[in-house]
């Protein structure tokens, strides 16, 4: 291996250096995404059944942030009580899904893994559907009736998957996925049964709407939990970003650079499981974001988790805010469930990008 050794591969196809520009580009990209997110949030608050001028929106928001009391007027109500919490919830849920997607893909070492693969969302769905069918009113439990039931369901499936995945040396990618899929399907069976038992059409509709995901329940009082969960999740994952880089190369590689692999996977599963539970509890099982966002980000900035985690969070937030805006405004008469739109937009975008990547010689 002298320095003069010439590898035929390098001379025949001198590859351009896309990654050489990555570090400054990641910073620029983050700044751009941040600006886009603010713009999208503003648009989401301006647009709706009645349009409100951006200047007016910001003046209401700044006045409220300054601690001023409510001022009479429907604009104030619409902006501060309805649209701002909803836009913020969309951003939080999108950011959280971006994070859990990135972490799940590293945890099971598969760039196409979906965070819902691990069964958490199925438990949450069962909890929520049970609450709807058994007639728990949405206003009970401090207005958190459905969310509380969904989170309880998420915890049950988390506990079941944990117990199964830890057996036999534990938390290998295969065991995690098999446990997750198995428990998920098991709980889905109960959900389907309950849907069939639903008393009337209204119940069936609310169940379906919930299963497809919605941000309609946003109020200031439900925001703090996902906000805290996303912030804590980002910190916990970012602290493990280097170890996750090693993990995606393989368990032995990770062990060789001093990572306690079983412990790392256990921690990642705990963080992603709880965060997923919170997200699904407040918004339903919004599909495809957790799969698509990390993958898109990886295509642009590469696989280093120190960059990937924050960028996935930002991208997820931006995407969800835009998608929710589309859902609210696309049709005059009714609102579309966000999960429907994420799948309709997300799947073709992902396929298109994958295709281009393949042609570029992946």
């Amino acid at each position: 291996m002298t320095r003069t050794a010439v590898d035929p591969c390098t001379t025949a196809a001198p590859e351009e250096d896309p990654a050489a520009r990555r570090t400054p580009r990641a910073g620029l990209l983050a700044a751009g995404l941040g600006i886009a997110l603010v713009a999208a949030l503003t648009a989401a608050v301006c647009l709706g059944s009645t349009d409100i001028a951006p200047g007016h929106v910001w003046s209401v928001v700044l006045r409220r942030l300054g601690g001023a009391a409510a001022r009479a007027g429907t604009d104030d109500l619409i902006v501060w009580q309805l649209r701002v919490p909803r836009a913020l919830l969309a951003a939080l849920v999108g950011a959280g899904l971006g994070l859990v997607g990135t972490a799940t893909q590293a945890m099971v070492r598969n760039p196409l893994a979906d965070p819902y693969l691990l069964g958490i969302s199925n438990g949450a769905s069962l909890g929520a559907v049970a609450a709807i069918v058994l007639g728990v009113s949405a206003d009970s439990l401090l207005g958190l009736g459905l969310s509380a039931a969904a989170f309880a369901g998420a915890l049950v499936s988390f506990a079941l998957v944990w117990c199964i995945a830890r057996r036999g040396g534990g938390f290998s990618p295969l065991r995690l996925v098999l446990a997750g899929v198995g428990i998920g399907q098991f709980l889905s069976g109960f959900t389907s049964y309950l849907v069939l038992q639903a008393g009337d059409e209204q119940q069936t509709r609310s169940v379906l709407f919930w299963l497809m995901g919605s941000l309609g329940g946003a109020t200031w009082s439900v925001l703090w939990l996902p906000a805290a969960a996303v912030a804590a999740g980002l910190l916990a994952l970012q602290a493990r970003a280097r170890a996750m880089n090693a993990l995606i190369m393989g368990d032995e590689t990770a062990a060789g650079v001093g990572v306690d692999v079983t412990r790392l996977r256990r921690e990642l599963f705990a963080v992603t499981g709880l965060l997923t539970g919170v997200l699904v509890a407040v918004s339903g099982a919004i599909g495809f974001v957790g799969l698509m966002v990390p993958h898109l980000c990886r295509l642009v900035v590469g696989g280093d988790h120190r960059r990937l985690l924050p960028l996935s969070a930002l991208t997820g937030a931006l995407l969800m805010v835009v998608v929710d805006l589309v859902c609210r405004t696309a049709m005059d008469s009714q609102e579309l469930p966000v999960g429907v739109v994420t799948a309709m937009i997300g799947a073709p975008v992902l396929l298109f990008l994958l295709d281009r990547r393949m042609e570029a010689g992946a």
Partner: protein
Amino acid sequence: MTVEIEDLHVGYAGRDVVAGVRLMAAAGEIAGLVGPNGSGKSTVLRTVYRHLRPTAGRVLLAGCDLRTLTPGQTARQVAALPQERGSDFELTVREVVAMGRTPYKRAFAGEDRADRESVAGALAAVGMAGQGARRFSALSGGERQRVLLARAFAQDPDVLVLDEPTNHLDVRHQVELLALLRDRRRTTLISLHDLNAAASLCDRLHVLHGGRVVASGTPREVLTPQLLAEVFGVRAAVTAHPLTGDPLIAFDHREPLAAGGS
């Protein structure tokens, strides 16, 4: 730094794959592990880089029991090149090599000058200087193996552990890799299938068979026709290599020995 393996037992599902291995690599020595498939070579190596935990016995680094060290402390002294070689994730060559700095970094710490120099030095050492921006998944097998070795160098270890590093490489790349190990010599534990390569590279060989060490010594002492018959179940003649003088094993490729050595 010496590595001593004392009465090592490792089992999967209640069955001992390694049953009482005892071997040693002196400081700066290249120690080769050879033996048929399933003889326990990889398993022994995995306990040294702490992918596997011994069920009994111990591994000593410079006299210090591995169990008294944290994974990070171990990784600052021992770097591994396992058989895993790849990833569907979009990592660049540079990012893969920078992984070697993991045991030196705290959470949230960025890369400092020492890290960058170490990564650049490791890439240069394996002849991949200036190629850090290439995608790891787009490299040829030989290049990949060099990059993974660079990652091990970036770890700045006293001990290198390599599990079949020449597998799937063409002859030229095999020779280059072994030359690199010889040039940048440090205490090395290496498993090799190619006995001629092992004879040329290693100071001492440890022959594993059925989870035990059945012979240890210099390649010349160990690689005898009798041992090859007993352990590998093949007929072979051992001569001196006409170019290098190393032991040269010429196998009889027409048929295995009737009873085998197993």
